[in-house]
């Protein structure tokens, strides 16, 4: 055995002598100054183009013939501030429903995805049922599911079954979204390469352990952006329950608009939705990017 192979990067902090402190050569200095100049020019172009585009849009909007009446009916801020508490109160319903429906959908969607990707013969009937379920509820407009369940279940007059439209509406939302989410998660599971399973199984991990520790963590990370898409859509779609008579943010805005024939409450409701969905999107994007940056060596944002 020969010693001192010098192979390891753990041997010392600086394995090689690079010949003292670095003095950039003239050509490198020229490159650096050219780079600086180019960045400056790019920033100028970006600013000029932004001002031009946004300025044009504002000018077109403000000089349009109906601008004054539009401003008075849609952007009457004093009225908007006045109705805001009622809209926010209604938005509380949207948020509550999103939390309840979102967590149920996550569990049910994951279960359906696992059943659909399983190979166990015992699960064959469930695999078939899961497929039918997804086919049916992904294909029916959610509004119809809400109407069918919200008005159909009470019409059955079953003993011990709730007639609460809020609960029935939420169930309708959960049923529909579980079908979407199941397919998103299933596609994520299918993108994990079989060699990852082979590696896990050859390490002695059981089927369940392989799913839990190797397949699902990678699959879920990959489908986080589309799942977030569904979450944002869910926040908005909880508003559809208002057709059953539940007062959410949209319904509250509608009531206020009906009182005064001023549409500012709608704009306020839109702003309230944006105030939640935009930060949520940014936060999730950031989380995902951080985790990818940590995991992947050559990550380009």
């Amino acid at each position, binding site marked *: *055995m020969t010693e001192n*192979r010098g*192979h*390891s*990067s*753990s*041997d010392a902090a600086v394995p090689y002598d690079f010949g003292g402190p670095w003095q950039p050569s003239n050509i490198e200095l020229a490159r650096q100054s050219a780079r600086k100049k180019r960045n400056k020019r790019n920033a100028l172009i970006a600013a000029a183009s932004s001002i031009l585009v946004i300025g044009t849009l504002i000018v077109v909007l403000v000089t349009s013939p109906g601008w004054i009446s539009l401003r008075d009916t849609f952007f009457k801020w004093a009225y908007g501030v006045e109705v805001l508490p009622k809209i926010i109160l209604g938005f509380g319903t949207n948020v509550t429903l999103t939390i309840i429906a979102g967590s149920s959908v996550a569990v049910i969607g994951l279960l359906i995805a696992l059943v659909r990707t399983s190979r166990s013969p015992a699960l064959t009937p469930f695999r078939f049922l899961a497929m039918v379920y997804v086919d049916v509820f992904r294909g029916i407009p959610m509004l119809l599911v809400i109407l069918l369940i919200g008005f159909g279940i009470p019409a059955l007059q079953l003993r011990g079954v709730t007639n609460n439209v809020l609960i029935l509406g939420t169930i309708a939302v959960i049923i529909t979204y579980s079908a979407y989410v199941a397919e998103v998660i299933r596609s994520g599971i299918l993108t994990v390469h079989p*060699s*990852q399973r*082979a*590696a*896990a*199984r*050859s*390490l*002695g*991990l*059981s089927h369940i*352990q392989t799913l839990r*520790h*190797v397949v699902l*963590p*990678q699959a879920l*990370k990959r489908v986080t952006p589309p799942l977030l898409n569904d979450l944002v859509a869910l926040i908005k779609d909880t508003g559809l329950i208002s057709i059953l008579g539940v007062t959410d943010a949209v319904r509250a805005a509608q009531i206020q608009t009906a009182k005064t024939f001023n549409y500012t409450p709608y704009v306020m409701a839109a702003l309230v939705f944006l105030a939640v969905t935009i930060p949520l999107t940014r936060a999730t994007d950031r989380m995902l990017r951080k985790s990818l940056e*940590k*995991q*992947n*060596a050559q990550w380009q944002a």
Partner: protein
Amino acid sequence: MNQPVLKVSKLRKSFGNDLVLQDISFDVPEHTATVFIGASGSGKSTLLRCINLLDSIDDGVINLDGQDISATEVNPDAVSPDAVRQKLGMVFQSFNLFPHMTVLENITLAPIKVQQVVKDAAVAEAFNLLERFGLKDKAHQYPDRLSGGQQQRLAIIRSIARHPLLLLLDEITSALDPVLVNEVLSTVFAT
């Protein structure tokens, strides 16, 4: 002469009409290394995957540690594939490291989850191996941050951390420089 650890006889394997392995018989005695040399695509990897029960065989018998492991399908009392794989370590040609786990987690996953080793003990052993293979400072990195040779060493560490009876190595030195080949092989023989 001891009983061989692995005894393969008359193994046959095909993918559809493509016959890959035919009439393969060999013994691997204890504490020895057996090497398969062949052209690319000649079935070396497939042979290892068959021994590891990742692929099913068409005919023949595979005997590991005195047990017929090729009979797991017909004989319900036979050892389960999971039990067989616990005796085997496999290092893949393309590493197949877990990209979402750090180097340390890659190594300790199986000892902790399958062999029920206490976490501290598994981590201590992992660091021991990492030090021997010159990867100690990479313990908390993700595999994608390692060079090809470092990933290869990690794959080897991951499989020997479980103390398998038999190591199946699929072209493990193909990504290493000559100095590291020596290092890896001497470590493999030392285990």
